[in-house]
């Protein structure tokens, strides 16, 4: 299947020839589909004249890059120290349960939600905290989780 790389081309041409641009380029490319597919990585490698192995090395080093399709909404559970001592694990369990994720699965069957952890969101005074897309929810209890998920599912 031929893929249309029009948008990607626009991103690539904005960066080509400049130094130190691989990471911002990959970040923008990832924004297109929510993840970096194999054809996309290969295409970037060819157009930027950077070995695919080097790109893969960068992509796997940084936690922000994704190699598989993501759910429509990204849920980030804060694992900061303040959240940890305020039972962030209980919040994560409640999310897993409500999203019906099984056996280490991180994305729901219907591709609505992907659950991930983040080292710290820096809203420590509101611990425990989660972020859904770009909205932060604080002072959580496991009971609050269904109501929050409700807001994002339709």
């Amino acid at each position, binding site marked *: 299947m031929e893929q249309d790389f029009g948008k990607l081309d626009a991103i690539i041409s904005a960066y080509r020839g400049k*130094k*130190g*641009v*691989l*990471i*911002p380029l*990959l*970040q923008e490319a990832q924004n297109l589909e929510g993840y970096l597919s194999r054809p996309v990585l290969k295409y970037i490698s060819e157009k930027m004249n950077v070995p695919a192995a080097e790109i893969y*090395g*960068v992509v796997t*080093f*940084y*936690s*922000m*890059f994704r190699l598989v399709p993501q759910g429509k909404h990204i849920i980030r559970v804060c*694992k*900061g*120290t*303040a959240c*940890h*001592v*305020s039972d962030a694990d*209980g919040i994560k369990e409640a999310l897993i349960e409500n999203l019906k994720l099984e056996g280490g699965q991180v994305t729901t069957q219907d591709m609505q939600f992907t659950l991930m952890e*983040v*080292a*710290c*969101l*820096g*809203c*420590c*005074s*509101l*611990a425990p*905290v989660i972020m859904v897309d*770009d909205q*932060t*929810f*604080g002072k959580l209890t*496991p009971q609050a989780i269904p109501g929050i998920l409700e807001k994002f599912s339709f």
Partner: protein
Amino acid sequence: MEQITVKVGLASCGIAAGAEDVYHKLEEDLAQNAGAFNLQRTACIGMCFEEPIVELHGSNLGVVTLGRVTPELIGPLLDEYKAGKLPSTNVILAEQHSAPRNDLLANQKRIVLQNCGVIDPLSLADYEARGGYKALRKALALSREEIIAEIKDSGLRGRGGAGFSTGLKWTFAAAAKSEKKYIICNADEGDPGAFMDRSVLEGDPHKVLEGMIIGAYAMGADEGYIYCRAEYPLAIAHLKVAIAAAEEKRYLGQNILGSDFSFELHIKEGAGAFVCGEETALMQSIEGKRGMPIIRPPFPAESGLWGKPTNINNVETWANIAWILLNGAAAFRAMGTEKSPGTKVFALAGKIAGSGLIEVPMGIPIRDIIYKVGGGMKTEKPFKAVQMGGPSGGCIPAELLDTIVDYDSITATGAIMGSGGMVVMDSGTCMVDVARYFLNFTQNESCGKCTFCRVGTRRMLEILTRITEGKGELDDIGKLEALATNIIKGSLCGLGQTAPNPVLTTLRYFKHEYLAHIEEKRCPAGVCSALLKFEIKPDKCIGCTACARKCPVNCISGTVKQPHVIDQSKCIKCGACFKTCKFDAITKA
């Protein structure tokens, strides 16, 4: 009468607590009643625990600050204020009256945070009205040597954690001979539990820019980077606005303020790797590579970004520069201790009443930070320890609460000053679990270059995990200590060199908790679930069967409307029953 001004705190923490709803309500009110008051936005004054916060100005009451404001409450409270009456509820600070939080501010000394929560961070005019960019004008009239001498004399030490003399670092970078030099602002703020840099960038971005522009001039750099972690979208947005405004007024760009000095500034977003806060890894990352630390020397001052002389400082370090230049080294030295002059910003979090952002003079005892500035403990559970320095730091116990805040005194406890995260723990926190938490973090974040850091931290994590699961043995403690020594010796960068600190300090001050886990198979704080026993209280159980249905191993039995029982031989201590019970009928101990 003077116009009433209403300022809403719209930093990340405020927004997360619902401040935008309050702001929108005020906008609606204004639309219906134009000119009724002035509506302004500001960032964080540091009392995150009281968010959403609204500040009222302009009546004969002086400034009154309200906390935990909701869209429903704001109208009536504002009406009271307008009528010259102290609002009947929600007042946290008042200029002319006693208010519950007045003391918390009174014990602070704010120079880095001087504008945070006061000005509109998106307004360059607000910053200028508070003396902004005066230091830059002053600097441009001085020689480069004079500026560096002032910074050196001030005794300012790097606020990113290691506490190295900023003046000395600048001297090295200034002395490097090269056509091209770079300066960098380290805004990676990776320590979990730390949000000082985020608040400064969100609340007063120009202060950081002004420090950097002065530094670039003094060291002869014409290009700079701010490396900001991507988890801080608001900070990045504010920086972009600030850079554009500064360029327009020629504080940045070609021929700054008509001089022959030019300086260009870029923002680089991180991509999620803790180790990229380490300076050599950070530069690798800006170059677009995997962020792996490299061996020093050569130090960045000789060969840094793209092989050029580079100076890197932390956000808070840069935010001190303009103040020092305007007020002089002596005024800076008048605060703090001899070896650690000035102030320090701390992020208070965990089991403390007044969690948020504070700035105090160095030399203040930790006890005063917690009880006077932080308002004491959050619940009636007693203080157990305060964690300082994040994954590189350690836990300071109650008996050392009188330790004063300076680089050397904190280091003597086995913890480190670090970047300023202070997480307060109470009797409900298990110290073995805390050590395991940090080792899990460093183990995950190790870049993998050094064997001891990569494999050693994993072995330590395995040992700590089995201790918390009740499978620990007495010689595990010796194994932890031996691994710690080797990881410290065998690691190239600060990540590995400090990774064992959380284990070493908890072993030093809380060995009895390790022993309780190992010898008695007991978790004194009641945290490690594998060591807990779950039981059903027959007098409270109404036989609703919710727990029995939840139990993954079907070890709860009983008939409907009759008290249930847990079969201890089958229980896997997952705690599901405890969380499910709505009648407080299940105990864990």
